[in-house]
């Protein structure tokens, strides 16, 4: 017993020293997730298994997309480096369990904000980074140009475990059309089956349709019908019960959107520090104590803008320039005819 006493004492001493020298802010003490993230040195982020424009990995394993950028923004804010993110690709079915079980700390995976998800299953939605709606894709050769031409017996391919399945039922039921739902676990199989001719139509969020269309054997043979049958506000999700972490993710997203509103870009962010506008100065950490409440330094938002860019830059880079949805539609700023409107950082 006494043999190990010496080792034991030194171990206790070491632990004590560690505790004394670990300087923790109040917020970090309150937020277990923030503390763990800073200790690990990376943000654990759940993304899709490959949806161009939102979260997609290239051959070298680099993730890009507007959903990916939300996680990168958080990493820039809390760790100082937008690349310190560990991405976990998740199926629609796995995503919430991965988040609630603590496998990941942010779920940024084109996830629709609904009442039951927000209230029931231990999740908190922090905002909307893409306003979407469910639509239908059909083969051009079918001659269908509107959902009003759908007839009894139509077969529809989709994913399981999504709001899509529920909206599809509401849609066909309200029109009294009988249909055959063919639901796969992974998006790649849905696309392959639809492309092979198994289904007459493929239904999911319109952004998803536009992105998946690029994966088809011959994208020009397919069209997305004009009708939108549901509201699908997509946004990042965190676990319930860590309000500081929730705030960090929410305001990282808000910062990107507000930066666009005030014309702050990754290129001009540094020079904006000397701006005359106090709101701009607050957004680049030159005025006020905007990070203290989160347990972060004052330049957390400047780092987001410099390393990830504002929302407009992210959209252009990932969705517009890749030809997925060149038109921003509702995802334009409220000042320019869209519905992107976030509370002010002050």
């Amino acid at each position, binding site marked *: 017993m006494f043999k190990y006493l010496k080792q034991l004492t030194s171990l206790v001493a070491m632990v004590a020293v560690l505790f004394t020298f670990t300087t923790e802010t109040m917020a970090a003490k309150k937020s277990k997730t923030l503390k763990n993230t800073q200790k690990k040195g990376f943000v654990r982020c759940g993304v899709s298994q490959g949806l161009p424009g939102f979260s997609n990995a290239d051959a070298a394993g680099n993730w890009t997309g507007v959903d990916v950028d939300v996680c990168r923004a958080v990493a820039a804010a809390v760790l100082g480096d937008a690349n310190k993110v560990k991405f976990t690709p998740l199926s*629609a*079915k796995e995503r*919430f*369990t991965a988040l*609630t079980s603590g496998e990941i700390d942010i779920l940024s995976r084109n996830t629709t904000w609904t009442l*039951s*998800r927000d209230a*029931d*299953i*231990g999740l908190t939605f922090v905002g909307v980074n893409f306003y979407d709606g469910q639509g239908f894709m*059909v*083969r051009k*050769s*079918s*001659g*269908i140009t509107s959902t009003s*031409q*759908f*007839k009894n*017996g*139509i*077969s529809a*391919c989709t994913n*399981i*475990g*999504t709001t899509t*399945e*529920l909206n*599809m*039922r509401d849609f066909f*039921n309200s029109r009294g059309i009988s*249909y*055959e*739902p*063919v*639901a*796969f*676990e*992974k998006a790649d*199989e849905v696309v*392959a*089956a639809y492309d*092979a*001719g*198994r289904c*007459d139509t493929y239904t999911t969020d319109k952004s998803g349709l536009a992105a998946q269309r690029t994966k088809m054997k011959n994208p020009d043979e397919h069209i997305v019908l004009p009708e939108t049958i549901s509201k699908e506000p997509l946004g990042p999700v965190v*676990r*319930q*019960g860590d309000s500081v972490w929730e705030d960090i993710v929410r305001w990282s997203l808000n910062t990107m959107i507000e930066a666009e509103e005030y014309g702050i870009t990754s290129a001009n962010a540094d020079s904006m520090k000397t701006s005359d506008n106090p709101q701009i100065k607050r957004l680049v950490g030159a005025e006020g104590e905007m990070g203290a409440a989160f347990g972060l330094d004052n330049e957390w938002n400047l780092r987001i803008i410099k390393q990830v860019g504002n929302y407009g830059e992210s959209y252009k880079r990932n969705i517009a320039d890749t030809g997925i949805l060149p038109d921003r539609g509702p995802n334009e700023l409220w000042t320019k005819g869209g519905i992107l409107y976030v509370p002010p950082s002050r």
Partner: protein
Amino acid sequence: MNFKLKDIGPQLITVLAVVLIFGFFTYNAQVNMENRGIDFGYGFLSQESSFDVQFSLIEYDGSHSYFRAYLVGLLNTILVSVIGIILATILGVIVGIARLSPNYLINKFAAFYVEFFRNIPLLLQIFFWYFAALRALPLPQDAEAMFGISFLTIKGLFVPAFIWENFNIFFYSIVAAIIAIIVIRINAKKLQETQGKQTPVLLISIGLLLILPLLSFLIGGVRLSFEVPVLKQLATTSFIYEGGVSLPPELIALALSLSLYTATFIAECVRAGIQGVGKGQKEAAASIGLTPNQVLKLVIMPQALRIIIPPTTNQYLNLTKNSSLAAAIAYPDLVLVFAGTALMQTGKAIEIVSITMFTYLTLSISISILMNWYNKKIAIQEK
């Protein structure tokens, strides 16, 4: 009663350890769920499911409860397992016997089949059959009719539906035939044991099975007609068959890949069983004047079955559990419908996964009990 602590001590400690570990996990799950604001409970089973399922053996749509959705998934799992087990057994027995054939070509062909199909992961085979079939099968409007009434297309196999009149009379006639056959068999056995007379049981059985249902048509007023599937146009280039019965390609691909895969293992069980019966048995049987058919039926097979049944039971269990790979190709089995969609819509992960696990456990144990009963029945009766 002379229990000693040193005898029961280890057992007690083991039981205690198991209980403690189980208790810890339960407690841990409880605390964590509470911390994350997740409720625990099975009340959701009676709520409206509000999602539809592609293929169901019982009446179901989104207005039914989650419990009903569970039943739909369970029945679909049982359906594909039963089809798979029957096909795998037939194919397995044929290939197993073929591997013992003195014919070089048959023998090597069977060996090649076994080695090829059992050494490729099942999931890949499922994908192969599904997507290969999807690519190869014609669109509904291009499909050639099989026997003029059935259509195999990319959207499934469409066959005529039976429309019965007075189906119950037909059903009773079959039940009556089966009861009569059982009675005749028992009598035939008695006759053989007491007087040594042999009765052509097989011929009489087949005759009964044909004549009684035929009588039900002639004098019982049973009528049978067919509803042949008819092509219907949905849009310029999209068609579907209406009327009749449709089997989705997902079911066909899954049943096909499950049985092709499992049949290889059953074939090996059959080969092992037959080779496990001593050569002397065959020679002895032949020497007392039994015909080759009788040697196989009365001497070799009863002994071979004792070796074949236990490992084949394992294969039946594997097939049933492997059917959960259905989720990959959209066949609405228990995992896809209940542990997939229902889990996502309710978020009740622990409840649903535990129900699903318990269901598979019950299914597997049922198959086990049935096969063990059969195994006991054919085992050596020690008198």
